[in-house]
């Protein structure tokens, strides 16, 4: 009985461990892919992985959206004209 339980537990843990490992690999590549720093192999790996792994697919989309939100939603403050003048003034004064 104990052996049977051990076997079941090992299978479950093994499966979860396998998935954890597989998703850990995916996670490591995710940032690289999003930031354009991944190798071609890493990109292919991620692409294929998210095709069959729902949690990683969701995660990928969230990360992608967060990056886009930072890039596109933050307002750029206009530079005060006085600052530009000051900088040019300082340059003229210096050698």
């Amino acid at each position, binding site marked *: 009985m104990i052996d049977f339980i051990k076997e079941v537990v090992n299978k479950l843990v093994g499966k979860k461990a396998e998935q954890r490992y597989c998703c850990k690999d995916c996670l*490591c590549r995710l*940032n690289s892919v999003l930031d354009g720093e991944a190798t071609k192999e890493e990109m292919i790996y991620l692409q294929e992985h998210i095709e069959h792994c729902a949690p990683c697919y969701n995660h990928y*989309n969230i990360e992608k*959206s*967060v990056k886009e939100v*930072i890039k596109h*939603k933050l*307002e*750029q403050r206009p530079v005060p004209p006085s600052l530009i003048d000051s*900088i040019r003034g300082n340059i003229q004064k210096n050698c």
Partner: protein
Amino acid sequence: MEEQNSKTRYKSKEEKDSLFEKEFMHLIGPLYNFGYRLTLDEDDANDLVQETFLKAYRFFDSYEKGTNAKAWLFRILKNTFINEYRRKTKEPNKVDYQEVESYYNSDDVNEPITSDLRVDSLNNMIGDEVANALNALDVDFRTIIILCDLEGFTYEEMAKILDIPIGTVRSRLHRARNVLKEKLQEYAQSMGYKDQRKKND
């Protein structure tokens, strides 16, 4: 005795100023915004950017013409910020990032953090809410998000700007993004409550 290298060469102050103008002045916008997001104060940002350009001008000889002007200026600004402004702000006991980061650099990478953050919540957020979430980050995390996602620097460029190994760039980005997601989720949730209250009124 003409030295044939790519270091900046000019024969007169006029020429130097013209070269400087050409290489750097168009970068005031991004630099000012970076300075503002670091200091969160208009006057401090002004001072920081002026200081940066002054240093850039003084050290113009050490700048290699045609190389990454933006990264060079950002590096100067970041260092100026650390030296001049960071001391002034109230800093909690400084975390030893090297120690934290070497831990995270190990194989013990976090699993995807399951969160309720949704793509549509993100898309519905307005600029102010995103800015608040970003500003809620510790300055080192905020910096790296700005450099990567807003300014589009590569990992290598960020490593040079921040004076850290590329491995640390990766792990710090990973950590920063996790905290940012938490903050965004908090804002998204509070938005949801506001919407709910509006509907109930």
